[in-house]
């Protein structure tokens, strides 16, 4: 149907340039010069940033809009960038700068190939934190017919479902007291632990379909013989569709009242699940099959910008190079072969979407 040729050195150089700029959440602006340099080298004549700092590049002028969306921030923890034995190492090599590089390269090889669509590559900010970048696109009301999310799915995974997430800060105060007579004293730390015990009992799932909970921070006490009069912790709850945050929050508030704790909602992300027959899923699968790969539908236990961008279009799915088990670890790397295949997958899928009849798309 089509040949998609790509220069190996250009692909490696593009990813290495992105990796060499360390961009934890809040520091994405460091990438500005590199983004411009890459876009010019790849032949993009339009590239820009928006008010929250999201990066964009586009080709084509068609009436439909196909968005290739990933994120340019990484979890904190700088890693040395190197290329060795067909592997590219560095912070973000998996999550998700290899997706960003592949998407930019896909736009490069699609120059003058799209007949009906404009292709926009977006490198969003703050995905590893509060997702400000994705929320900006929804608030702005961008018009996108199809969105491919670039997140690590071991290349051949097509993610159609992500769980939701609730993060809450828990605080407690108590009268404290001497540990020699704890029956006459009161511990703020124990109040939080009692609440946590109840939450853990209620949400003790161990697989995708179940609600899971984790106590992620806990602070309280400063002396071995003194019961703490203040304490605080953080709890993270993950929940699949069809659960919604409101029911869980209602229960958490009930427990907080029972154990005399105060809750502060830090972040809520609703779960997302899309039809496996939607145009983007079909386009990605067909693109992989044309490359001789064996695609599989996956559901993710985490969250991504897809949870937010689903509000723009339901023709959406996530797919990207890199072993998802290496994301956020010290051992992040992606193989050059996966990088090259990802470029072809994205480009092939964009061509499939471009050629859909308006009724299908």
């Amino acid at each position: 149907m089509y040949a998609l040729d790509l220069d190996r050195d250009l692909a490696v150089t593009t990813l290495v340039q992105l990796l060499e700029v360390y961009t934890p959440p809040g520091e994405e602006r460091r990438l500005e010069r590199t983004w411009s340099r890459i876009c010019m080298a790849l032949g993009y004549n339009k590239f820009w940033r928006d008010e929250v700092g999201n990066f964009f590049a586009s080709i084509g002028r068609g009436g439909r809009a196909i968005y290739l969306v990933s994120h340019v921030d990484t979890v904190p923890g700088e890693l040395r960038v190197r290329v060795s034995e067909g592997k590219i190492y560095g912070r973000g090599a998996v999550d998700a700068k290899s997706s960003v590089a592949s998407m930019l390269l896909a736009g490069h090889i699609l120059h003058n190939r799209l007949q009906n669509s404009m292709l926009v590559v977006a490198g969003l900010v703050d995905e590893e934190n509060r997702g400000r970048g994705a929320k900006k696109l929804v608030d702005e009301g961008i018009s996108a017919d199809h969105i491919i999310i670039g997140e690590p799915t071991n290349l051949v995974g097509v993610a159609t479902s992500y769980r939701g997430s609730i993060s809450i800060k828990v605080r407690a105060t108590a009268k404290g007291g001497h540990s020699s007579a704890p029956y006459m004293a009161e511990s703020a730390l124990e109040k939080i632990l009692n609440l946590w015990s109840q939450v853990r009992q209620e949400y003790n799932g161990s697989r995708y379909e179940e609600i899971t909970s984790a106590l992620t921070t806990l602070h309280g006490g400063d002396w071995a013989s003194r019961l703490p009069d203040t304490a605080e912790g953080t709890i993270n709850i993950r929940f699949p569709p069809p659960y919604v945050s409101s029911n869980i929050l209602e229960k958490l508030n009930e427990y907080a009242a029972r154990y005399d704790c105060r809750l502060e909602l830090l972040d809520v992300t609703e779960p997302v699940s899309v039809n496996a027959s939607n145009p983007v899923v079909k386009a990605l699968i067909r693109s992989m099959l044309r490359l001789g790969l064996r695609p599989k539908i996956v559901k993710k236990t985490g969250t991504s910008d897809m949870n937010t961008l689903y509000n723009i279009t339901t023709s959406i799915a996530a797919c990207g190079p890199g072993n998802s088990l290496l994301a956020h670890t010290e051992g992040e790397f992606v193989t050059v072969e996966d990088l090259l295949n990802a470029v072809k997958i994205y480009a092939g899928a964009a061509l499939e979407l471009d050629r859909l009849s308006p009724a299908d798309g």
Partner: protein
Amino acid sequence: MPELECPVCGGRLQIPEDSLPGELFEHQDCGANLEYFQDEKGRPALKVAEEVAEDWGQ
């Protein structure tokens, strides 16, 4: 557009002419996820798709 038999409910399912072996389809009548393939004689057919896999992390 070929019409094939759903291996789950026995109903009929229309598949686009340009379908590729390995492509997935949902049978609207019974909800089954099906994979298009060609049997040993090269005839188009459908089988139940592999179960959806769970993937850790973002």
